[in-house]
């Protein structure tokens, strides 16, 4: 009995060691850089801007905000060496923020599957779903993007109608966000309401290896659960914070400045369709 007790105590002691969960999934050989213009607030039409990377490996690709990733990496480094918040803040002050924390991993955890991760306040969430391929209608229109001859295609996907421009010169069936399934890389994609627009501004073949990692501790959830959490935080930050166990009280002193906005998501969920 004593042996077991000592073993337990030792294991629990070891569990106190800081562990930094990071799993290397693949190595990217191509990095595509996209800019994104998107509507942040559907009522005021306030726009948001972001710069995102699509890192393509032999088996897996990862799509994420370059800016938010930079901010997180700097913070992690500063905090790891015992730096304080003001030091981290001053080092990240020049990085334009988008507050888009999501990562899309295609063909992970297995082929034809997609993993989506996102952060909502303190917690990081993760769900998996089949890698859905839109049913594209290929059109004859063509235009040049970044020196690549691109062809137009249209599809209804995840609740929105998308127009994409792809190039067969890069025969990789991938694209920004969850978009994929064309006979070439998508260099431009916009939804029919002009709420989201991704456009390629560059790409580079990677000589030094860039790992495709999944980093952090995640709470497994369903897509619907993540949507509900994001919606609640966006629509009522005070209620969301009050629901957290470590927060005993929250008072918003400027409620007029955080009016409830209609929550906008790039993917229209089934529950949101029903509400409309």
């Amino acid at each position, binding site marked *: 009995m004593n042996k077991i007790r000592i073993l337990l105590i*030792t294991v629990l002691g070891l569990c106190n060691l800081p562990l930094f969960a990071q799993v290397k999934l693949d190595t990217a050989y191509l990095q595509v850089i996209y800019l994104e213009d998107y509507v942040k607030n559907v009522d005021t039409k306030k726009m948001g801007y972001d710069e995102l990377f699509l890192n393509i490996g032999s088996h897996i690709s990862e799509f994420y905000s370059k800016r938010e990733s930079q901010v997180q990496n700097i913070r992690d480094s500063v905090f790891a060496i015992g730096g304080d918040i003001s030091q981290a803040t001053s080092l990240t002050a020049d990085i334009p923020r988008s507050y888009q924390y999501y990562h899309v991993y295609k063909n992970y955890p297995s082929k034809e599957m997609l993993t989506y991760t996102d952060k909502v306040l303190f917690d990081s969430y993760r769900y998996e779903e089949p890698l859905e391929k839109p049913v594209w209608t290929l059109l004859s229109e063509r235009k040049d993007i970044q020196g690549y001859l691109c062809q137009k295609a249209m599809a209804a996907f995840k609740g929105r109608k998308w127009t994409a421009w792809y190039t067969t010169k890069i025969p990789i069936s991938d694209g920004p966000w969850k978009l994929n399934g064309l006979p070439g890389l998508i260099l431009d994609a916009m939804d029919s309401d002009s709420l989201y627009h991704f456009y390629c501004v560059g790409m580079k073949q990677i000589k030094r290896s860039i790992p495709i990692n999944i980093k952090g501790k995640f709470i497994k959830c369903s897509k619907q659960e993540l949507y509900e959490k994001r919606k609640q935080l966006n629509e009522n930050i005070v209620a969301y914070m009050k629901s957290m166990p470590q927060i005993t009280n929250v008072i918003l002193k400027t409620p007029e400045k955080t009016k409830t906005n209609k929550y906008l998501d790039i993917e229209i969920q089934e529950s949101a369709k029903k509400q409309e």
Partner: protein
Amino acid sequence: MKKIMFICAALFISAQAMNAAEESESLNLKLESEVATVFSSEVMEAPGIENLEECEEATYHFLSSCGNSLTMTTDRELTKDEIVAIEDAIEAKC
């Protein structure tokens, strides 16, 4: 067997003591660092911890660049990651 148990227990206790010492050091550092942040443009006042030894609650005041102001009480001191997550959430509302 008793000797082994004694050595294991001694090792464990010393490891815990070292951890506790580090935690207490980091707590002081954290408080100092937060005070520094608190007076920056992001946060208005120091966390309202009056007595470290009897600390049961911490109060934080956040002010975003567009004037959103939020006061929050927590049952423990927040980590740096949690504080920046709240700053971001409030700033994202601008």
